[in-house]
């Protein structure tokens, strides 16, 4: 079985869990997760508060999708996740500018631990007070649009939108 480890991280209320759920629901026949759980980073009885779902799209191919812990401080679980990841998605809620600073910290942390394909998904674009993606990019420290990772708008509740975001991410892997 060829497995890709995908990490979904992001700011408070950005929709990490919903994104992961929407992605896992894409498979035609959802497998029993316990059948694949023994291949996960963490044992079944772990008390780790992380989201974990699988997306098996072929008999011999699957993605394991992990959500980062919700606490603000980075700990060893973050390190385990990112060091074993093949790619990651950073979700940011556009209407919560107070969280942009934290998003920048996540980026710094991730960059320090792994240089892997990634995209930034902007959620809650239709909420009042939402910032435009290009302004969020500036807030994250990307001054030059040619040097920034792909930034896409995502509706985490919409499978098609999540699929689109994942396509953008996969294109980074090619």
């Amino acid at each position: 079985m060829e497995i890709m480890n995908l990490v979904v991280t992001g700011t408070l209320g950005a929709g990490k869990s919903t994104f992961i759920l929407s992605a896992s629901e894409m498979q035609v026949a959802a497998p029993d997760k316990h059948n694949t759980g023994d291949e996960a980073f963490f044992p079944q009885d772990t008390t780790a508060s992380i989201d974990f779902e699988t997306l098996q799209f072929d008999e011999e191919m699957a993605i394991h999708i992990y959500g980062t812990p919700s606490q603000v401080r980075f700990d060893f679980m973050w390190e385990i996740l990112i060091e074993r990841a093949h790619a990651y998605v950073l979700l940011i809620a556009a209407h919560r500018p107070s969280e942009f600073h934290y998003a920048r910290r996540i980026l710094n942390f991730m960059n320090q631990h792994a240089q892997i394909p990634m995209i930034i998904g902007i959620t809650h674009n239709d909420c009042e007070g939402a910032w435009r993606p290009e302004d969020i990019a500036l807030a994250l420290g990307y001054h030059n649009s040619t040097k920034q990772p792909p930034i896409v708008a995502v509706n985490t509740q919409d499978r098609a939108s999540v699929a689109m975001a994942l396509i953008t991410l996969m294109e980074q892997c090619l």
Partner: protein
Amino acid sequence: MQMLAHGYLSQYSLAEIFNLIQEGKKNGVLSIEPRDGSIDASKVAQDSTLEIPCYYVSFQGGRVMSIFYGLEYENQDLLAMVLERQWIPLEQIKELKKKLSGLTIPWGLQLKVWEIISVDRLRLLFDIQVLSQLAKIFEISEGKFRFDPHAELNYPEMTGLSLSARNAVLLGLRGLKDWSRLTNKLPAPESRLQRASSELQGSSLENDEQLVWQLALGEMSVLEIAAQLNLEIDKVRQIGFRLCSIGLTHEVAVKPSPPIEIVKPVCVGGGNPNIQISTAFVSKLIGFLKQQKG
């Protein structure tokens, strides 16, 4: 690129907003409506039509051109400041006003070109208009902000002198007395500071700031830098925040050691990141996802 950002200072600090404007080299007007002790909140609640004086900061190419505080942004005039200081007689002011109206360059600059006002006097007006106001706006603890890239620049109030938003942040934050609302944004004591570049990018650093910047090599924690420089940890965190705010350094969070009673989860398999995902895998997945998006 246009930006119409708005929000509350409790969500996004003024330093971050200025940095954003500098990085984007934005033109426009940032209005800041204080909602702290300087305004009687109960009066505002009772009377929704009550006008609240605002600060209006004009930016051109990411540089601070002028700051005005009052009810209305329009109709501000550099000549009023000149008249107040009796540098030019009233009759001449009236004539100049006619000649200047409609010009789309800072009036101060034009007055200098006409040799009606000296550079020293322009600098004084700029100090009054901008530098003295900066300390006040960075003291605002609660308030709403709005950046309007479509707002017309008010040339009649501009001297033609300007200050980079980066240096404006430095000046504003240096004068800040109450850091309590920024506590959760300061670099953590165990975090490391990493220089963003090997140059100061035109920033005028004070001695302590320069010393911290020199040690920001990503190797020492904020705590260790404080010990090495014999400075209080709070002071180094504040300096670190200033340097991060103007993009000279960034904070690198370091994971704390796990508590001894927690058993590190055991990796029991899963995809091995050392094994590259095959192109066939990615291609097949893209095909699958394209079907999903319909």
